[in-house]
């Protein structure tokens, strides 16, 4: 009965099984690679701030490259420049961040209530327009603002404001804390809107009706029932939105740098362009700390409290909309106007600006298609040819699509594999660790993450050549930065696939590769596809992540646009950002289409 040859033929030893299990192999490999791509860069960044660099010899006579020092931290916190380098930007970051968050939350909250709880007309098409500002690059809104409020005092041509009113706008309106807060708020209010709308949708009208029946008035019901129920979500939305604003780089840079108004994020960039790498890294760490703090707060406090309310819903759940009566159309008009102002007008402004021969003069005789179709003309824009003839722009477009596509595919596949490991090996501590590591990039503000990759692969590592300035490095950072999202979509997709579906295939004798290909992949495909599209759009509009890593040969649309904006070539930068905005909107439309597509049939059955 016990035949030793069986052990070698049919069966395998326990250790052999553990080592040859493809899932275990993938898990260990990913753990190793991701540790190197996520944790090590951070450690390296930290070490960099704590050791003397080659360039420091210019600054200090004590500098011994490679030796430990507190110099950079002391320089940033107590040095003569600390006010300008750290404290000023820190105050600016908090100031603009908090102001923007308050505005975003107020606007988002009111709009969410109108859409979710009232009988306002036109909800279906207002909602996508209201999310537009979050879909287009944040940089587009800053450019649109500049188009209107540009002040000749800082150079360049006058904006729409001056052209119309014949008076230069006050400087506080053009640059600094006010425009940064407002544009940040415009960019992030849809984010707050989605969070609050989600919370409002969980309110069961019966709770409110219960209070009304107990004799409470409408105001009391709002104060004692509705508000406490959404409060945790509201607070979470506040902290999460704030956490997002502080990592913004392009927007505060465009509207702040001309008047030397800096946030921590723009200071990281400014210091790096000045060659003060270590100081920039100190600021990057400060930025990471701020981001960690905000996410920790939202999880600790708010996460727990809101989870307690999760019993809401379930059976007999229904949400009654509140009739606005005579206010229906006025409310609609107000919301529609707002949606137009923040969602559509900025794009129109960019479009109009891109066909103006000399910016700042708004007349029919000034209209030109030069910036789109024209060939190089030394008289205009330092001889930069129009978009369609501009080799730099065409190259950048190709690079953008290539980067977004490759990164999206790789990030989605790896995300699905990690999700598979996390879900199916839920009790394995290594699988848990892998899940955690894949989430870490979410905690890094993108500009800080980009700073980390400056030193990563600067020199060859083992068989891998030096990657600085290569397209590969851009793919690498884009993939890693998308992982938290793609793992999340992957987990949702895998969780929907019952384990028995896979076991049935296993019993039929299908290998792991065959099961993944024939069962998991097709069933996860709708989630996988939309996840891939989200990543594609996300990478396409990314600027702050890669701005530090771009070299002339690896330029993408966003960085070229940013470069033109820095040089003051408004028409070209507007044209480029408009292209990216249109591409992202197309991407989002495809996403909506996928979501409603035929694969929905499969998803229904699995739940």
């Amino acid at each position, binding site marked *: 009965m016990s035949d030793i040859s069986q052990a070698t033929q049919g069966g*395998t030893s326990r250790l052999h099984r553990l080592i040859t299990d493809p899932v275990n192999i993938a898990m260990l490999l990913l753990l190793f690679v991701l540790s190197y791509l996520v944790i090590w860069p951070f450690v390296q960044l930290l070490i960099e701030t704590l050791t003397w660099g080659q360039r420091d010899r210019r600054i200090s006579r004590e500098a011994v490259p490679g030796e430990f020092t507190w110099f950079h931290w002391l320089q940033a916190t107590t040095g003569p420049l600390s006010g300008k380098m750290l404290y000023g930007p820190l105050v600016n970051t908090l100031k603009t961040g908090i102001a923007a968050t308050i505005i975003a939350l107020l606007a988002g909250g009111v709009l969410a209530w109108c859409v979710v709880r009232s009988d306002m007309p036109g909800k279906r098409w207002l909602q996508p327009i209201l999310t537009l500002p979050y879909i287009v690059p944040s940089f587009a809104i800053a450019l649109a603002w500049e188009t209107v409020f540009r002040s000749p005092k800082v150079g360049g041509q006058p904006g729409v404001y001056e052209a119309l009113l014949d008076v230069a706008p006050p400087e506080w309106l053009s640059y600094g804390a006010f425009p940064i807060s407002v544009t940040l708020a415009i960019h992030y209010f849809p984010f707050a809107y989605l969070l609050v709308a989600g919370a409002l949708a969980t309110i069961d009208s019966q709770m409110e009706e219960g209070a009304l029946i107990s004799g409470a008035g409408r105001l009391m019901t709002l104060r004692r029932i509705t508000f406490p129920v959404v409060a945790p979500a509201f607070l979470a939305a506040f902290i999460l939105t704030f956490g997002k604003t502080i990592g913004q780089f392009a927007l505060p840079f465009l509207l702040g740098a001309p008047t030397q108004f800096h946030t921590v994020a723009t200071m990281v960039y400014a210091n790096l362009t000045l060659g003060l790498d270590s100081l920039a890294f100190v600021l990057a760490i400060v930025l990471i700390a701020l981001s960690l703090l905000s996410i920790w707060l939202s999880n600790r406090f708010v996460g727990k409290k809101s989870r307690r309310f999760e019993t809401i819903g379930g059976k007999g759940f229904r949400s009654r909309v509140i009739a606005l009566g005579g206010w229906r159309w006025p409310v609609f008009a107000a919301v529609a106007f707002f949606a137009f102002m923040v969602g559509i007008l900025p794009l129109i402004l960019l479009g109009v600006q891109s066909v103006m021969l000399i910016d700042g003069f708004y007349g029919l005789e000034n209209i030109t298609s030069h910036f789109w179709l024209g060939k190089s003309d030394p008289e205009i824009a330092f001889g930069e040819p129009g978009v369609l003839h501009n080799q730099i722009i065409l190259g950048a477009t190709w690079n953008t699509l290539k980067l977004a596509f490759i990164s999206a595919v790789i990030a989605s596949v790896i995300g699905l594999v990690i999700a598979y490991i996390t879900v199916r090996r839920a009790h394995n501590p290594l699988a848990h660790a892998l899940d955690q590591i894949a989430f870490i990039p979410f905690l890094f503000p993108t500009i800080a993450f980009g700073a980390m990759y400056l030193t990563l692969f600067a020199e060859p590592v083992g068989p891998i050549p030096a990657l600085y300035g290569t397209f590969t490095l851009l793919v690498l950072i884009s993939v890693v930065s998308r992982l938290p999202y793609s793992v999340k979509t992957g987990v949702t997709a895998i969780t929907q696939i019952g384990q028995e579906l896979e076991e049935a*295939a*296993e*019993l039929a004798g299908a290998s792991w590769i065959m099961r993944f290909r024939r069962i998991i992949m097709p069933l996860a495909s709708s989630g996988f596809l939309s996840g891939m599209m989200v990543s594609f759009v996300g990478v396409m509009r990314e600027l702050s992540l890669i701005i530090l890593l771009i070299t002339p040969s690896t330029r993408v649309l966003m960085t070229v646009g940013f470069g033109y904006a820095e040089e003051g070539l408004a028409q070209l930068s507007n044209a480029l950002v408009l292209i990216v905005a249109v591409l992202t909107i197309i991407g989002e439309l495809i996403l909506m289409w996928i979501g409603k597509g035929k694969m929905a049939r499969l998803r229904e059955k699995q739940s």
Partner: protein
Amino acid sequence: MSKIYVHNLTKRYGSATALDNVSLEIESGEFLVLLGPSGCGKTTLLRCLAGLETPDDGEIVMGDKVVFSSEQNIMVPPGKRNLGMVFQSYALWPHMSVRDNVKFGLDVLKTPKSVAEERLDEVLSDVGLGDLDQRYPSELSGGQQQRVALARLLATQPPIFLMDEPLSNLDARLRMDMRVELKRFQSTAQATTVYVTHDQTEAMTMSTRVVVMKDGSIQQVSPPDQLYRQPENTFVADFVGMPRINLVKLSAETSHGSVFTNGDIRVDVGWEPECSEIIVGARPEDITISNEASAGREDYEIKTVLPNGPETIVQLTRGETTFLTRVGHEAVLAKGQTVWVQFNSSALNIYAAETGALISPETVKLSEAS
């Protein structure tokens, strides 16, 4: 020949023991049902047989092949064990048509296309899905989905069938029909079948033998009629049978004798058990009631009358003691009425109160003889 041997199988999840030193021999072609309350280890045992779980200790042999042995470090993967399984959820692949679902196993075996197609047609028409083969699982009713799962099992003609509560998702009527069909397919295929269920009617009607499990160990292995008539301990007695068996703890009235009592009632078990504390197990049908008093009968009060179609369940009390009995639907009984009760002493099962194990005149005689 696909006899299955299970030797001293143990499976632990952390500190919990799901299977505790289980040994079992399953005859070739047998329909063996694993029965027990949820969490008793029946599904774990089935999954260990399938190879979906790796036991911690023990050995499993299928036919003449060791598929698992902790000592010899053998673990044959599920696909190499040559068995088929029907899952509780059916586990149909929602992105494949009925035909592709059934074909998958043949694909894995790299069956030539013409042979595979022929086999598919045969199996699909056998289970009555011949004209639905291009549908997707979501377009089928529960019963049809069940048939697809069955066809998928039958397609590769494995000598061993494993079934994990395959009928629990069907409505009562369909379940009855499918029992008959499952049994038919099993006997045609002559496959050794291990079937998990918590439904005792299913166990009783389909099995050649039933294994009752509790807390990871086997309580009894018997053909269904014996399981019902002679449960080997109070757990099995209580678990099998609907309405449940009457179990009453009694003490010997005299130091030697066949009469036992608990203060409320007296029962003459007809022989002399060795222990003085016993539990009497009386099936509801082993208690007869009469409207007239007679010698040796005690009077009980009727507490509730529960008509249930062909039969009526009656709850009787005497002092603190209650009994359930089963009478024909024609009996006219009222709450509060007094009736006289007789036990069919030859059908009574006697358990030692201390251990809960069955004792019988035979065991007494055996122990006396030795």
